[in-house]
C-alpha cells in the first residue's frame, strides 16, 4: 500500500512553513503542480517499462519524515574527511538542509556563484527562474515530481560567460539518520554560460547508519561551447534509499561528462538524462557500481540526440558480490533531425558470487536515417586465465583478485580527467573493493 496520505500531510505542513518564509508565488505554483502530478502518478511499479527491474515498494510503503528544524548536530571535525585542497567552493548539506557554518564559499572569482538554491531563488530570481524545473520533467516522472514538491534546498552554481574554472566545486550531502526514518530532497541547478568550463562533484555520505530516503534532482544547463565535468558519488549507508536524476541540457558544441560512482545505499536508482539540443555537442556518460550484500543498484540512462552531429559515449562497469543486484538500462533516442548522430554504449559486469544478479538492457529508438549507434554488454566472472597468471608470479589469491578488480574498476577512472577529483575517487573506490589493494604506484 503506497503511503501517499503521509506525503499530503507533509506537503501541507511544508507549504504552510514556506508561506511564513516568504515563498515566491511562482515557486509555490510549481510545487503545487508537482505535488498534484505526484499524487496522480504515484510511485512507479515494475509494470512500467522503465522500472521493470527495480521495485520501489520498500520506499512507497514506508513513511518518511522531513527533518525537524534546529541544530543538526554536525561539527566541523565530522566534515574533516571530506575536505579537499584546491577547491573553488564546498557547500555542505545535512539531511538536505544547507549548513552555512560548514560550507566554504568561493573567493575571488568574478561573477561565479556557488550558493544555496533557496537563497538564490529569493535573491537571484532572474538567473534561476528561466531554468528551474524546465528540464527535469516533473509532469512524467514521479520522483522528480516528489523532489520538486518537497525540495528544501540544494546548490545553485552559476558559471559566467567565458570563465574557465579549474578548481572543482564540491557539494557534500551528509545523511544523519534519526530514530524516525527521514527523507531529504536535494535540488541542484547548475548553469554554465557560453564558453565556460567547470567541474562539479556531488557526494552523498552517511555519518551514521540508519534508514532514510533521498530523492535528488540536478538540472545542468551547458551553454554553447561549454566544457562541464560532473561527478556523483553515492556512498551512503546500506539501509538508505536513494533516487537521483541528473538532467543535462546541452547547447551547441557543448562537451559534458557525467561520472557516477555508486558504492552505498540499499536501493539506488541513478537516472542520467542528457539532451543534446545543439549541433556538434558531445557527452560522455561514465559509471561504476560496486554492490554487495542485498544492495540494489539501477542505472537508467536516457540519452537524447535532439540535434545533428552529436556524439554520445556510455560506459558503465559493474562489480556485484553477495546477493546484490545491478541494472543497466541504456536508452538512446535519436530524434528525426539528429542526422550524423554517433552514439555508443558499453556495459561490462563482473559477478563475484552465484547469487549476484545483473540485468542489462539496451534500448535504441532511432528516428533519423543517417546515424551510427552501437551497443554491447558483457556479464562474466573474474578471468580465470588472468587469475592464474598473477598467482603463477607469486601473488596470493586475495591479492590477485584485488588487483584484477582494481584493474576492472580503473577502466572507469581512466575515463576521468586526471586531477584531484580522480585521485580522490581512486582512493574511495580502492577502499570499497572487496579486497582492498594499495593503489600507490599503480600508474
Amino acid at each position, binding site marked *: 500500500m503506497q503511503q501517499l496520505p503521509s506525503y499530503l500531510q507533509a506537503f501541507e505542513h511544508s507549504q504552510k512553513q514556506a508561506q511564513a518564509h516568504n515563498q515566491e508565488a511562482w515557486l509555490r505554483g510549481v510545487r503545487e503542480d508537482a505535488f498534484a502530478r505526484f499524487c496522480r502518478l504515484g510511485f512507479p511499479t515494475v509494470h512500467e517499462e522503465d522500472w521493470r527491474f527495480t521495485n520501489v515498494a520498500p520506499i512507497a510503503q514506508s513513511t518518511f519524515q522531513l527533518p525537524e528544524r534546529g541544530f543538526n548536530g554536525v561539527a566541523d571535525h565530522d566534515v574533516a574527511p571530506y575536505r579537499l585542497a584546491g577547491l573553488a567552493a564546498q557547500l555542505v548539506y545535512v539531511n538536505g538542509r544547507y549548513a552555512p557554518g560548514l560550507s566554504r564559499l568561493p573567493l575571488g572569482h568574478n561573477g561565479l556563484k556557488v550558493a544555496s538554491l533557496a537563497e538564490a531563488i529569493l535573491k537571484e530570481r532572474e538567473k534561476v527562474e528561466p531554468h528551474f524545473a524546465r528540464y527535469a520533467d516533473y509532469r512524467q516522472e514521479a520522483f522528480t515530481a516528489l523532489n520538486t514538491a518537497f525540495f528544501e534546498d540544494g546548490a545553485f552554481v552559476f558559471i559566467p560567460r567565458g570563465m574557465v574554472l579549474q578548481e572543482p566545486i564540491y557539494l557534500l550531502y551528509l545523511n544523519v539518520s534519526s530514530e524516525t526514518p527521514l527523507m531529504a530532497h536535494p535540488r541542484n541547478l547548475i548553469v554554465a554560460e557560453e564558453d565556460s568550463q567547470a567541474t562539479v562533484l556531488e557526494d552523498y555520505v552517511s555519518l551514521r547508519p540508519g534508514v532514510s530516503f533521498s530523492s535528488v534532482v540536478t538540472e545542468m544547463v551547458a551553454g554553447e561551447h561549454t566544457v562541464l565535468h560532473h561527478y556523483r558519488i553515492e556512498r551512503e549507508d546500506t539501509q538508505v534509499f536513494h533516487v537521483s536524476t541528473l538532467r543535462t541540457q546541452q547547447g551547441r558544441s557543448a562537451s559534458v561528462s557525467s561520472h557516477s560512482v555508486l558504492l552505498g545505499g540499499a536501493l539506488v536508482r541513478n537516472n542520467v538524462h542528457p539532451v543534446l539540443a545543439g549541433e556538434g555537442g558531445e557527452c560522455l556518460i561514465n559509471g561504476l557500481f560496486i554492490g554487495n550484500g542485498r544492495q540494489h543498484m539501477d542505472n537508467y540512462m536516457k540519452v537524447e540526440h535532439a540535434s545533428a552531429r552529436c556524439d554520445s559515449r556510455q560506459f558503465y562497469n559493474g562489480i556485484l558480490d553477495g546477493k546484490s543486484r545491478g541494472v543497466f538500462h541504456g536508452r538512446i533516442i535519436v530524434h528525426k533531425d539528429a542526422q550524423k548522430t554517433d552514439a555508443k554504449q558499453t556495459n561490462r559486469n563482473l559477478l563475484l558470487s552465484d547469487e549476484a544478479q545483473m540485468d542489462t538492457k539496451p534500448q535504441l529508438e532511432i528516428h533519423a536515417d543517417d546515424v551510427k549507434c552501437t551497443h554491447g554488454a558483457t556479464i562474466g566472472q573474474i*578471468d580465470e586465465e588472468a587469475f*592464474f597468471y598473477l598467482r*603463477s608470479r*607469486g601473488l596470493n589469491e586475495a*591479492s590477485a583478485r584485488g588487483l584484477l578488480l*582494481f584493474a576492472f574498476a580503473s577502466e572507469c577512472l581512466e575515463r576521468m580527467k586526471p586531477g584531484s577529483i580522480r585521485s580522490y575517487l581512486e582512493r574511495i573506490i580502492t577502499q570499497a573493493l572487496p579486497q582492498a589493494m594499495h593503489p600507490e604506484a599503480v600508474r
Partner: protein
Amino acid sequence: MLEIKNLHVKVENHEILKGVNLKVNAGEVHSIMGPNGSGKSTLAQVLARRETFQVTQGEVLFNGKDLLAMKPEEAACEGLFMAFQYPVEISGISNAYFLRAALNAIRKYRGEEEMDAMDFLPFYKEKMKLLDVDERFMTRSVNEGSSGGEKKRNEILQMALLEPKFAILDETDSGLDIDALKIVANGVNAMRRSDRAIIVVTHYQRLLNYIVPDFVHVLVDGRIAKSGGKELALALEEKGYAWVEAEGHTAAVAV
C-alpha cells in the same frame, strides 16, 4: 632440483600424461620436444600448478618438497617460474606495478625486505635493457595491445627480474621472428647458472641453436619416448617425430 616420478595427469577424464619420469639437476638445461598433443604444455602447466589438471598418480619433488601440494603462488615463491605459451592480457595494471607486486610477494615469502619503487625502477630498467625493451613499456598495461613477440619477450623479462631457481619455457619460440628469437635466447642464456635449472618446451629445433640444451627428451603420447643429448634435437629435425613415434610403438609392442 626437480624430480618427476611416474606422473599421470587427466583433463576431463582424458588421460594426457601417462607416467612421466624426469630428473633435472641444478645447472642443467633440458629441452622437452614432441608433436602437438603429446602433453608438453600439460606437463609445463602441471608444474606451474594449474589447478584444472587432475594428477591421478605419481609425485614431483622440487628441492625435496612436494610440488603437487603447492598452490601456484607457493610454487612461484619457492622459485618456480613458467613462461606462458599464451601470456594473458590484463588491462588496467601496469607492467611495473604488476612486477613489483610479484617481486615483493616472493621476497616477503622468503622473509626478505620488500623493494620500494625507488630501488625497483633501476633494477627493472637494467633488465629491460637486457631484453631490448623500450622504457615506455613500464607504464603500459600487462601485455595489452602487444604483439605475440612482445608478449614472449615480456615473459623472459619477468623471468630475468624474478630470478627463479627453476624456469619452464612453454613454447616461448612460437610466433617469434628470428631477431626476436635471438633476443629471447640471449635473455635466457644470461640466466644460465650453476644453481638454476631450465626446461625449454618446444616443438621445433631452431630455438635450441641459440639455447643449447644439455639434455633433450621427446614426449610422445604422454610418455618420454626417447632421451639424449643436444644431437637428438638435430636428428628429430631431420627425421621428424614419426621416427620416435614408430620406435616408441615398437618398444611398447616389445614390452
